[in-house]
């Protein structure tokens, strides 16, 4: 008997091609939207987590001023000096290494090529704290750091822009009023969690940067790494105490600088992707609603015809149960077809999206199951319940339904 019911259901689906197609389409839209949005949202969250992990969990970022991001110069507070960097490294045993960093956006010229890039003044400790290796050339010599010689290392993006496939080592580029000899090239680092290109960078000795680019002695940011096995919280407290002392901040005054660890960075960035995921989810919810309303519309439009059809079936001897079983099977079959197609389409869209946004493709089984469940519920609610109402009418009322 089940196969007869299935046969009846399939016969009804086939003989109402347009209605069946539109119903399936509604389910596809809803399911595909949810799966693609949620998968992309999950992918970007995974991406952020991977980025945070790649920065290293023992890194502290110290900036002057309050509440700035890791790349902001910090407002309000006085900038650090090179002596502050040395003090942190020398006086706090918990700190393995600290590197100064001051940066400025500058137009870089080589031959006929020019490109806007970020110039960072620092020293060799930068390679340690940022965990960044060279792909060719060498680090700064001590003498170059001490005297502020105008030499520099290129990130992969600016190297590509200025030299293409040529060898940049030994060439001289122009930055603002200074010229600078290239001594090395950095390995590729990729985009940061905030989406900016970390490889569009030029490193030079900080004294050269002060003299030729900035015109002051400021250090806008200090990167410090905590020794292995030591709590970053404790290191952070010690740095804060040291800097308060050095900057003569009294006990009742607030810090005019900011020490962040990666845990905080992670929380901050997860909240950003959280907003993103929320946004995507609401788009998905709207699509679900649109799909659901579509299905509801079709069902309402066809309710007259379907009610008469039920009247005919009852008149030729169908029992209420037989009619209901057929409609239930029909609704489930349509939902399954729509659900499967929606899942396939959703995963394809999510895959395309993950390539386009260069984030990981992170499909989740649970969301696929939820979407499938949703499609089944929609199909049953909108396909089965109107049928149940009709099947409970007097057959004559179903036959005469206007």
């Amino acid at each position, binding site marked *: *008997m089940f196969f*007869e019911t299935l*046969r*009846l259901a399939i*016969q009804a689906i086939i*003989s*109402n091609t347009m209605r069946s197609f539109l119903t399936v389409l509604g389910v596809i839209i809803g399911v595909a939207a949810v799966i693609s949005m949620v998968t992309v949202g999950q992918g970007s969250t995974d991406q952020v987590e991977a980025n945070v992990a790649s920065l290293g969990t023992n890194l502290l970022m110290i900036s002057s001023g309050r509440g700035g991001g890791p790349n902001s110069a910090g407002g309000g507070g006085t900038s650090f000096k090179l002596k502050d960097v040395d003090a942190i490294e020398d006086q706090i045993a918990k700190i393995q290494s600290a590197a100064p960093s001051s940066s400025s956006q500058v137009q870089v010229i080589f031959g006929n090529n020019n490109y806007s890039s970020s110039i960072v003044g620092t020293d060799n400790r930068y390679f340690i704290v940022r965990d960044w290796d060279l792909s060719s050339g060498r680090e700064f010599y001590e003498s170059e750091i001490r005297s502020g010689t105008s030499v520099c290392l290129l990130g992969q993006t600016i190297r590509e822009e200025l030299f293409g496939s040529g060898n940049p080592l030994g060439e001289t580029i122009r930055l603002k009023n200074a010229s600078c000899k290239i001594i090395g090239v950095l390995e590729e680092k990729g985009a940061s969690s905030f989406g900016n290109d970390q490889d569009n960078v030029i490193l030079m000795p900080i004294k050269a940067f002060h003299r030729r680019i900035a015109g002051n002695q400021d250090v806008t940011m200090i990167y410090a790494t905590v020794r292995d096995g030591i709590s970053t919280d404790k290191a952070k407290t010690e740095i804060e105490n040291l800097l308060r002392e050095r900057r003569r901040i009294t006990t009742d005054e607030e810090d005019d600088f900011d020490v962040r660890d990666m845990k905080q960075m992670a929380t901050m960035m997860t909240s950003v992707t959280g907003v993103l995921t929320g946004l995507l989810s609401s788009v998905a919810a709207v699509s679900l609603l649109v799909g659901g309303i579509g299905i509801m519309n079709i069902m309402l439009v066809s309710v007259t*015809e379907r009610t*008469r*059809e039920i*009247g*005919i*079936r*009852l*008149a*030729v*001897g*169908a*029992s*209420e*149960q*037989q009619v209901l079983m057929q409609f239930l099977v029909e609704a489930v079959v349509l939902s399954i077809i729509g659900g499967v197609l929606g899942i396939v389409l959703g995963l394809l869209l999510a895959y395309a999206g993950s390539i386009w946004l260069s984030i990981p493709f992170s499909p989740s089984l649970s969301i696929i199951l939820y979407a499938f469940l949703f499609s089944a519920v929609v199909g049953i609610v909108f396909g089965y319940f109107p049928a149940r109402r009709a099947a409970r009418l*007097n*057959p*004559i*009322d179903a*036959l005469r339904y206007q």
Partner: protein
Amino acid sequence: MMVQTSGQKILINDQKTAVPLIAFKDINKIYGEGEARVHALNAINLNIYTGEFVAIMGPSGSGKSTAMNIIGCLDSPTSGVYEFEGIEVGNLNRYQRALLRRNYLGFVFQGYNLLARTSALENVELPLIYKGIARDERRQRALEALDKMGLKGREEHTPSQLSGGQQQRVAIARAIVTRPNVILADEPTGNLDTERSKEIMEILKKLNEDDGITILMVTHEPELAVYANRHIDFRDGIIESDSQCKREG
């Protein structure tokens, strides 16, 4: 007894006994309330016996369809007792009434009431599916019924590809395929021209004479009523006249 499922139906009575196939005892049907109240059937008493071909006539709105629908278990009376083969239908539940329609009754409607976009063959097979008849036998019987209605070669046509007369013959095939005791035809020729109407009447007459199927037919046209052997006239919800007559044609 008749509520047994498919297959064998048990004819408890036939014309030789005094128990009628269909009996109305003081049947009332009232639609609506207050201003809109319509007394569609007013204390109707009526006996119909196996083998009769009854033509029901009367002006529009006189209650003919209402009576047919109650006989067909498509609707229930407001009061009164309706017995089918001596069994009180009012005491049957919905499922048992479905079984009564399935095993004893066949319907032919003025508007054909075929499933749209569904082939003639599938339309005729439909009642047999609900009866639980196996696929091969079902197909065989549906093809035979269509053949009997002169629709050989039209099996795969959908209603929209058939003329009115052909659609009504598909509907008759669907009504007879279950080998019912009674065919209820409410203005079966209402949408057809005289030629087609006569064809349908010949078919009904043949079913009555050859297969012994009891036929109740509503019609407006006196020249079609002559195919029947009993005429019942309705007026304002009561039976105005009821006469046996010799069949002509």
